[in-house]
């Protein structure tokens, strides 16, 4: 049996999405910038996609700029706004994705000032702490909508109120939350928002940045002036068509949440000494469960599950290229030895109850096996 529980990393392309894309990989291969019929057809299809995506997040089509994905959108948002401002202060949370954190660190080297805002033990940013961190020269706040590791959904409404009051732009990375919870830009109060396709059953290599009308941003890519001069480069037509379709398919969030809840109940009933990382309830992404299995290490458990055809991910230091534990788990105050034992399970629309039961069986067995091997047992912190 095979069971994929890593939808937070990427998702398979939905058959409907693939069907919509295929003509644009074959006979309808035109460049959306070409003036001939083939080009105009491509351009028209791209604009239909733009409209569908804009509608899905409550934006106007002209506020959507297509990019190569989440990393580019986040780089574009943060560096583009900073370049337009020339100097000043920006604030990012400590649990942002690396592409946000490293963009901020890079801007620091260019002379900008950055505050890395702490989060509480469930990963929440405090709007009040944010208010205190805002300076006279603060021009941008970037707080992700939902965290990719522990599923914490940030109080963006409250955060945006603070930003509005202070006249500061708000950017949010919504790659994980798109289609799981409402990401209406006016409800959330964001000025810029990063979204991408491959986490929602669309193809890899395509994303978008929502830029509220009137926001001044410098282009990140120089070139032929595509996307109203905001993002040069030939449009990834099949990718954009797929992205547009992927917001229109049924994401079965209720089903996903049900399976996730059954899984969580099962883990907590059947396995001792586990710790849920991140919050419980509605402030957690419906598809995410992240547990530390004490006394064992995550990479080992990942490979054991892999040997049964089960795909999950770990934030253990041992599985990273730097041997550093996850900055998200250390930011919520986990001791290193507990952070090492963390495994993320992210559920998807095509998972079944049978798969959940299968992973619970194998998980219980392998945790037991690895604990037999471990010199630690209860009492060790």
């Amino acid at each position, binding site marked *: 049996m095979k069971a994929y529980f890593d939808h937070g990393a990427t998702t398979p392309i939905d058959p409907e999405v693939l069907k919509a894309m295929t003509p644009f990989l074959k006979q309808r291969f035109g460049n959306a910038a070409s003036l001939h019929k083939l080009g105009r057809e491509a351009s028209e299809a791209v604009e239909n996609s733009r409209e569908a995506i804009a509608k899905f997040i409550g934006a106007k089509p002209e506020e959507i700029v297509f990019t190569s994905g989440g990393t580019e959108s986040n780089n574009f948002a943060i560096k583009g706004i900073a370049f337009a401002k020339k100097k000043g202060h920006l604030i990012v949370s400590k649990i942002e994705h690396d592409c946000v954190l490293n963009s901020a660190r890079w801007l620091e080297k260019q002379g900008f000032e950055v505050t890395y805002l702490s989060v509480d033990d469930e990963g929440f940013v405090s709007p009040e702490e944010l208010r205190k961190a805002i300076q006279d020269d603060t021009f941008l706040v970037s707080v992700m909508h939902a965290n990719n590791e522990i599923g914490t959904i940030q109080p963006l409404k409250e955060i945006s109120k603070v930003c509005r009051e202070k006249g500061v732009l708000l950017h949010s990375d919504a790659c994980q939350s798109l289609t799981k919870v409402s990401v209406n830009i006016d409800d959330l109060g964001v000025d810029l928002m990063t979204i991408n396709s491959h986490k929602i059953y669309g193809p890899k290599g395509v994303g978008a940045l929502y830029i509220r009308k009137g926001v001044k941003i410098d282009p990140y890519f120089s070139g032929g002036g595509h996307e109203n001069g905001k993002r040069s480069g030939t449009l990834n037509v099949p990718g954009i068509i797929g992205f547009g379709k992927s917001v229109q398919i049924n994401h079965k969030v209720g089903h996903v949440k049900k399976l996730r809840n059954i899984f969580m109940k099962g883990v907590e009933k059947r396995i001792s000494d586990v710790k849920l990382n991140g919050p419980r309830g509605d402030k957690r992404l419906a598809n995410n469960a992240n547990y530390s299995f004490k006394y064992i*290490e995550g990479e080992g458990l990942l*490979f054991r599950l892999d040997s049964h055809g089960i795909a999950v991910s770990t934030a253990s230091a041992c*599985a990273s290229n730097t*041997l550093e534990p996850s900055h998200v788990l250390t930011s919520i105050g986990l001791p290193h*030895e507990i952070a090492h034992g963390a495994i993320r399970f992210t559920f998807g629309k095509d998972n079944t109850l049978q798969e959940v039961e299968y992973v619970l069986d194998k998980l219980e067995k392998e945790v037991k096996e690895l604990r037999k091997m*471990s*010199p*630690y047992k209860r009492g*060790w912190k």
Partner: protein
Amino acid sequence: MNYGKKVLEHFTKPHNMGELKNPDGVGKVGNPRCGDEMWIYIKITKKRGEEVIKDIKFKTFGCVSAIATSSVLTDLVKGKTMEQALLVDNKDVAKALGGLPPIKMHCSVLAEEGLKAAIKDYKKRLKKV
């Protein structure tokens, strides 16, 4: 992380895993904060005047390669004389596994250190008797 077949074999079915009752020496190396800790237990016997590692077991908290290096170390030194065992270094451990990803070489160092710590403990205990 690209692990070789041998590494995964040892990880999935480790050899000599567990504790020894009344060991003659125990070596505890590593640190859970860094993600791995290894405990090596040894039992020593004398054969024709030479000290021989009669039995060896391990307990390890750690990743795939920490468990695989522990397992292959026990294979490499079980039944060897103390002198032969002390010549086994981290490169031998990594070689016996068909190589390790460069970032995981420290696991083979941990295995070498674990064995040496167990032998040191054995010698310390001898002096006390």
